[in-house]
């Protein structure tokens, strides 16, 4: 399997194969993080999800959000479905939990922008 490491702008081209004994053969990485990334990517690829959520009564219409850790790539669409129709109330601070344990991944969806109460 051919991969391009996404951990830094260097973008190493990595080749990874599993031997019959179940051991990983990894070639082409420049640092240990690249090797770990390749094995993770070959077994269970992880990504951080970022999106935005509707806000009620805030000085912004939407609050940006992210998962507080990487989640399995194949849980992204399910996680997004869970955000549909959700509205949260202002005020919101950076780091506030908007959805706990999103799609059962163990990660929380947290706010990445501060939203104050709308001044009328």
């Amino acid at each position, binding site marked *: 399997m051919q991969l391009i490491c996404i951990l830094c702008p260097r973008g190493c081209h990595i080749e990874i194969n599993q031997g019959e004994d179940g051991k990983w053969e990894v070639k082409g990485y420049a640092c240990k993080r690249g090797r770990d990334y390749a094995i993770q990517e070959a077994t269970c690829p992880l990504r951080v999800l970022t999106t935005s959520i509707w806000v009620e009564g805030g000085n*912004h219409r939407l609050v940006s959000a*992210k998962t507080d850790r990487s989640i399995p790539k194949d849980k992204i669409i399910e996680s997004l479905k869970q955000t549909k129709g959700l509205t949260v109330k202002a005020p919101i601070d950076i780091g506030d939990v908007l959805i706990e344990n999103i799609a059962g991944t163990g990660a929380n969806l947290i706010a990445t922008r501060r939203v104050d109460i709308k001044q009328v």
Partner: protein
Amino acid sequence: MNRKTEVAIIGGGPAGLAAALSCYKHGIRDILILERDEYLGGILQQCIHNGFGLHWFGQELTGPEYAQRFIDEVNKVGIPYLLNTMVLEITKDKTVYAVNPRHGLIEIEAKAVILAMGCRERTRGALKIPGGRPAGVYTAGMAQRLINIEGYMPGREVVILGSGDIGLIMARRLTWEGARVKMVCEIMPYSTGLIRNVRQCLDDYGIPLKFRHTVIRIHGRERLEGVTIARVDDRRQPIEGTEEYVSCDTLLLSVGLIPENELSEGAGVMLDPLTGGPIVDEFRQTSVPGIFSCGNVLHVHDLVDYVSEEAEIAGEGVYRYINGRNPSADDYLLVMPGNGIRYVVPQRIYGDSDVEFFFRPNAIYDKGVVELTDGDRVFASKKLLRMVPGQMERLRLKREALAGEGKIKSLQLRWRGPDKEDDGACS
């Protein structure tokens, strides 16, 4: 409203915020930030994806989080700012004219001005794509603002022209919001965005990236109905017989950014045609004494971390200027781009301190050396495994390197190594 200030900062995005804090750190207390939007933070507020701050904070942040750290700091030390405030004119003697709904016309007399207006996107007009003018054609950044800030979905079936980072990020964002992104067309034989973004935004979702392809026609009257794409030759001209119709209701353009310098030109600031931004010295002072520049208005950066760094330098420059510590204005060395280099910033230096040069190559080059030379002697150099136009590089010149070297008229930054990898040179 009339007022005086030591430093007026035009723009409250990442460059303006970091420049204001740098001025403050150097002991300047009378600072005013002017921001045309209704909040500070600039374009970062709509860049809700992560990947910011690895260099500056040593951790991966989203755009709004990165911005908020600077905004909190500005509020903490109490630097004043005016929001919803549009600067109309800056004069050579550093009077700034602006308007906002609360104060009407504002006249600000400043000792120093920092230009931090950022850049704007190239539009359809700049590309001259033939066809009607239906709704559904957006710049990638506009679509990003609609989805992430305003909460509108620009369309359902999308073609993206240009593989710049914003286009790639938007391909994923639109996919996540339920749109179908049919393809990304890139006129060059390589992506102008970071490879990690090609990987995690396109490959992850099976979105094809078509190199050496462009959009040659836009179809539709009221709403976009489709585009005609075609392959291009080595001179980037469409090849007859390769045309293909692609139906879509939305076309996003991610085809480059242009420093926004109308105000700078009005103040008589000299621009560099290679960067589209002002010509500056190592403290980011422009050709007009007391007017400084940093961030994307100076040259387009790919990492906000480097914008923050550059803004710090400009703040130090303002401190030196206000305290009369600047070298004599005529005593500078010119620095020009040589073989393989598209541009270099700063374009002139006094050389009485270390200088960090930012530069970009004009094509892809592998395994060689970038060197700063006067033709005979080399004053700074760096080995590079690879340099690509989509990635800004840097080189540090030590102050000692120039000392005692006799009279040097000008310097050149050049590439020494194998020729460029591909003929499809970057414009």
